[in-house]
């Protein structure tokens, strides 16, 4: 009687661990498929090429910011400054809008990278906790953007900046292409470069990485610079799509949305792992979930509450992995 139980115990335990691991790795895709299936059946006129295109365009900015956040979280850090960098980037585009569009965008990206450099320096060299190092710029960045714009929301008329949103290649919206470029870049960096491997090593165990010759500080700085540039790029996309700079609303709370997408996408907060496709899927999932609720005339309030439940569920699955 007792011996079969003893055999079954560990076996079912293993199965459970395997199931949990599978759920953690693929849960976001399953949820996405289920949500689309639900909408095919219950929401008329939701799954149409036009609407899916709109939904995708709506979440492009979050995708771009989330990828930078995923890399930072891969080093067991966090970047709270991304939303502020987006606002600052928009404000800078206004300042530089007399320049040729490409130069203005490049300058905005450079400033985003400089913010990342500051964050990375504080984290890598001074040893300040990431949450505090980046919290400072969350305060300062948006206010700097407001001061740059002196409280106005000036329109952007520069054609090449606006082309980021209004342009299209083969009928694909410019914002989708802008996000796809970022996805491809991050996927390449994470899968094919030394930097990507070093990033994961630092996240896994920064002490061991240091002892085995990984340039820990340089890697940390690089990660925050990357995140800053991606956030600035999202700011350019945001500004181009609303055709004006708004220091108050551009990128507001994006740090929270991005963390949500990264966590729901299956990247553990403890570092050492970055899931690029999972993060993109999670950003799309959160967007579809929200608009599904709106289609079914739930209020924004309800969708916020459901967001909270999704976050808890996603992390609960990860937690079980941490113990297994």
């Amino acid at each position, binding site marked *: 009687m007792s011996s079969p139980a003893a055999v079954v115990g560990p076996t079912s335990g293993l199965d459970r661990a395997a199931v949990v691991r599978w759920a953690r790795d693929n849960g976001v895709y399953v949820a996405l498929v289920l949500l689309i299936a639900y909408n095919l059946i219950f929401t008329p006129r939701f799954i149409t090429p036009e609407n899916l295109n709109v939904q995708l365009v709506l979440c492009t900015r979050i995708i771009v910011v989330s990828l930078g956040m995923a890399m930072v979280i891969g080093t*067991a*850090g*966090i970047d*709270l400054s991304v939303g502020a960098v987006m606002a600052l980037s928009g404000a800078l585009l206004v300042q530089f809008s007399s320049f040729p569009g490409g130069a203005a965008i490049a300058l905005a990206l450079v400033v985003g990278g400089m913010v990342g450099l500051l964050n990375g320096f*504080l*984290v890598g060299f*001074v*040893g*300040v*906790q*990431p*949450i*505090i*190092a980046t*919290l*400072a*710029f*969350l*305060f*300062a*960045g*948006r*206010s*700097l953007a*407001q*001061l740059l714009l002196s*409280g106005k929301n000036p329109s952007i008329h520069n054609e090449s900046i606006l082309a980021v949103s209004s342009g299209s290649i083969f009928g694909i919206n410019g914002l989708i292409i802008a996000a796809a470029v970022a996805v491809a870049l991050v996927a390449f960096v994470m899968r094919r470069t030394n930097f990507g491997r070093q990033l994961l090593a630092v996240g896994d165990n*920064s*002490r061991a990485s*240091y002892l085995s010759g990984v340039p*820990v500080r340089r890697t940390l700085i690089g990660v925050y610079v990357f995140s800053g540039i991606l956030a600035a790029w999202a700011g350019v996309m945001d500004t181009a799509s609303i055709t004006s700079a708004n220091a108050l609303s551009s990128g507001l709370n994006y740090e*929270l949305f991005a*963390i*949500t997408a990264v*966590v729901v996408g299956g990247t553990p*907060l*403890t570092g050492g792992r970055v899931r690029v496709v999972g993060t993109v899927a999670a950003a799309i999932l959160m967007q579809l979930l929200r608009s599904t609720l709106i289609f079914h005339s739930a*209020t*924004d*309030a*309800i*969708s*916020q*509450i459901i*967001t*909270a*439940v999704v*976050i*808890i569920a996603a*992390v*609960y699955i990860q*937690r079980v992995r*941490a*113990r297994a």
Partner: protein
Amino acid sequence: MTTPTESAVAGGSPLMDDGGEGYRDGSPAGLRARAAAVLRRNGVAAFGALAVLIVVGSLLWPSFHSADNLRNTLLGNSYIGIVAIGMTLVIITGGIDLSVGSVFALGGVVGVYANNNAGPVAAVLATIVVCGAVGLINGMLVGFARMAPFIVTLATLFGVRGLVYQITNAGATTYSVTSESFFAHLGTGTIATIGIPIFLAVALYVVFHTVLERTPFGLTTFAIGGGEDAAVLMGLKVRRTKVTLYVISAALAGIAGMLQAAQLVSASPIIATGYELQAIAAVVIGGTLLTGGAGSLIGTAAGVLLLGTINAVIRELQLDSTWNNVVSGAFLVTVVVLQRLLIYRRND
């Protein structure tokens, strides 16, 4: 299945482990390290900066140290000050509570609603119970389900704000009290020309300082932050203490929100966004370590007052109030970098 010890030992990875074990290595001069520890612990740096700021401000502007200015600054910062108490306690255990801003808004709505239906005593009780329930959810998920505090409270930040929008119909339903009511006096009233919220904030600081420094509960709080596994092995009630602390944090945030609603004679669903970050900034400036195990409420009080005084200086300079955040952010970095340079020697 899982004994308490097992489950407590297995997880418990702090979100931001930046390898800050440098302070344990004995190489820097012990005296300097000890002096630095004393400085850090009681937020002496923050008090020093505060003193400098007040002296400079008083020399430059005669009106700066006027009683009116002082009263307004204290009153304006008593709410965030109350929020920062709970935040300090949670951070000392190595946790964090991002939901306080949303709970603050919830406290205002619940307080006004209960007051209008059942009177001021019910208002206080209902606020504590409803907001404490949010803290209970946070605490259970952190303490028993062993989830990362950052993520749990991020979720309740969204969820509770959504709840507040839902019960106010996104602000369409207004919750207000008459300015003559007893409830409104909690916020607008004065004793010897000093606002009642200031008295309450000071009283709460005294109570929780005593709890933290003089009771077993306070010792357990420090022990959890110092080393959770060790605390479990010592037989301390780690999980129960954690739950209690998140309940305290949420209840205090709710009370602060209720007081501000009383002062404004109405509850706003959009109030207090970003308060969690302000409170964290004040706590960190006050010398409490985010890694847990060290900190003090005296320091936090200094941090709150320092940020409030920066605010007042900027008002005095007649600068755009947006400069507040820029200066506060710069100050936060400066203080943290100084603490870091003064206290830690990185060994990597």
